[in-house]
């Protein structure tokens, strides 16, 4: 029992089910989240268990149903709205960033918006430029939303329960390639032991996934696993990488970043989201604006280039960050160190 393993998809749906059990105000809205169980399985089994009043399939009207979730959250409910792919944010962003994210502030804290906006991210399976994006920074740049990105099943459950219980809106971004779906490549190590009982993982605390003294590699979501793969390879060259899983972009756990870099003196940041104006520069700047001398070599970023996601497999794979690129970046940063 204590060693029960779950996929991330199962961990998420279990978290939702347990919260729905506990709290009658929790409900789910979205497209194909009922009978279908969510295109990526995050709501599997919920309709059967809780019925169509609390597990509501919607028209293809993201503005209406995400906005309705905002209204319901202001009216005593705790909705979880699923935006099927994060790539679709553009049809509903006004409700998301101008209401969901700002109503707490606009009301001077007199109104709470306890809702979760859950959405799928990521590519790597040739779904082309409107179905493969990550867009972490698109949300993290705008104030008023917490932005959570789990990297494994244990965290996924605990972070989802935290997100549901949070009085503020939480954007919960799960990477498709971590969900343990049988029909697409999935990172095996995202499947972990998951306790049956409900538990929380606090939002805003990064986790050290691997300790190391030579270099800090910062990542979120799927890229944590790529970073761990890179660390394995580097270990064979006597390079001990510390891998930091941010777990959320907002709040960003700057202390953990600083602590690790203070130890290692070297920094590589990995992101599957577009490189410019994104996570990588925010993490690097967090370090250098705190104390330039923490870094003993120039930092590196390994991120998605500034191109729409191409369909064709060789092109997409070329563009994606991977363990080799991360390891190479680590080697580069350590090499410049020697020179400096």
């Amino acid at each position, binding site marked *: 029992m204590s060693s029960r393993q779950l996929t991330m998809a199962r961990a998420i749906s279990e978290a939702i089910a347990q919260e729905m059990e506990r709290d009658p105000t929790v409900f789910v809205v979205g497209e194909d989240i009922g009978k279908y169980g969510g295109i990526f399985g995050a709501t599997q089994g919920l309709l059967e268990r809780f019925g169509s009043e609390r597990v509501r399939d919607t028209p293809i*009207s993201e*503005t209406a149903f995400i906005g309705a979730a*905002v209204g319901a959250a202001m*009216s005593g409910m705790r909705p979880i709205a699923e935006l099927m792919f994060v790539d679709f944010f553009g049809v509903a962003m006004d409700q998301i960033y101008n209401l969901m994210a700002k109503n707490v502030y606009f009301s*001077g804290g*007199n*109104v709470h918006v306890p809702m979760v906006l859950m959405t799928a991210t990521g590519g790597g399976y040739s779904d082309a430029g409107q179905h493969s994006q990550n867009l972490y920074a698109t949300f993290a740049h705008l104030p*008023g939303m917490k932005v959570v990105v789990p990297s494994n099943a244990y965290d996924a459950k605990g972070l989802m329960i935290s997100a549901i219980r949070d009085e503020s809106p939480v954007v919960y971004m799960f990477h498709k390639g971590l969900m343990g779906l049988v029909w697409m490549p999935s990172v095996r190590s995202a499947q972990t032991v998951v306790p049956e009982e409900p538990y929380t993982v606090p939002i805003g605390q990064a986790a050290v996934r691997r300790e190391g003294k030579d270099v800090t590699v910062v990542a979120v979501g799927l890229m944590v696993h790529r970073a761990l793969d890179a660390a394995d390879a580097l270990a064979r060259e006597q390079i001990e990488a510390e891998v930091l899983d941010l777990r959320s972009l907002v709040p960003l756990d700057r202390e953990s970043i600083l602590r690790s870099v203070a130890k290692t003196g070297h920094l590589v940041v990995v992101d599957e989201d577009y490189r410019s104006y994104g996570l990588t520069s925010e993490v690097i700047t967090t370090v250098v604006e705190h104390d330039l001398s923490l870094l003993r070599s120039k930092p590196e970023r390994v991120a998605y280039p500034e191109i729409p996601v191409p369909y064709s497999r060789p092109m997409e794979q070329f563009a994606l960050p991977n363990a080799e690129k991360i390891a190479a970046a680590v080697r580069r940063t350590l090499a410049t160190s020697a020179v400096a």
Partner: protein
Amino acid sequence: MSTGEPSREQLLWMYETMVKIRHYEESLAQAYSEGKSPRFDISAGPVPGELHLAAGQEPCAVGVCIHLRPEDTVTATHRPHHVAIAKGVDLKRMTAEIFGKATGLSGGRGGHMHLFDPAVHFSCSGIVGEGLPPAVGAALAAKMQGKDWVAVAYTGEGGANQGAFHEAVNLAALWKLPVVFVIEDNAWAISVAKDVSTAVPRNSDRASAYGVPGVYVADNDTLAVFQAAGEAVARARRGEGPTILEIETYRYYGHFEGDPQIYRPADEVKRLQEKDPIVRLRDHLLREGVLDEASDREVVARAQREVDEAMTFARESPYPAPEEALENVFA
């Protein structure tokens, strides 16, 4: 409240509330102009920023909100004061918010386009069409909680061409939610006239696209609004689903204060004012013996006093400490 003929009490409430709204908007226009001459500077004076006033649109507020309880949700637009007042928003704290004061509904963070009074389930926002989906959500919440509360979503006629309108009405109709969609047709969306924005003459005709009732109230008629809204609210409360209610109304001021209004026929406002809904209702009440000159004076004085007190409260309240700007981002 009943949905038939308005009672004496209801008539008086609507009249007094309209008088209050009118005096409120006129007082605000006055306060807004302070510090803005000789040169108009939007950032100056005790009430800076955009200010959208609703003088002339009182029937849309009182004729609808008279049917509502505090638990019923209202989402209003960028032009929210008349509706807020009719819904019973705390007038002092609302005014203080508009003056950017610490005693304001949100301690000055929101301002005139972001008034939140959870005590009467009122909110508004600045993006056109934006308030419609949340009203659907409030109605959904009521339904899921087994309450007979309703939600009223306001939009201008210009806003009825936003995608949010279509999506929200469809969803409310589909789920048979207790929502009344009120469209204030004041003929203008800033400088764009309804006939160059909207492919049909009446948005109420769009109701057939959702299989819901669509009602059009002509000529800013307070009693007709009362009637139509009463039916729509009652229908919603009975669980029979949403209604689209379009009300022809008048915009006396510019789109916002400072609007040069070059797009508008010079005499339009004068023509509208000749049919002023407050005057019409007053005449009706006098005719019907609900009001006499003496009681009218009393009503007007009381309404104005309440507004004046709110203005004074707002003016005398302190500004928030600047660094409080950093608070309340998260709940």
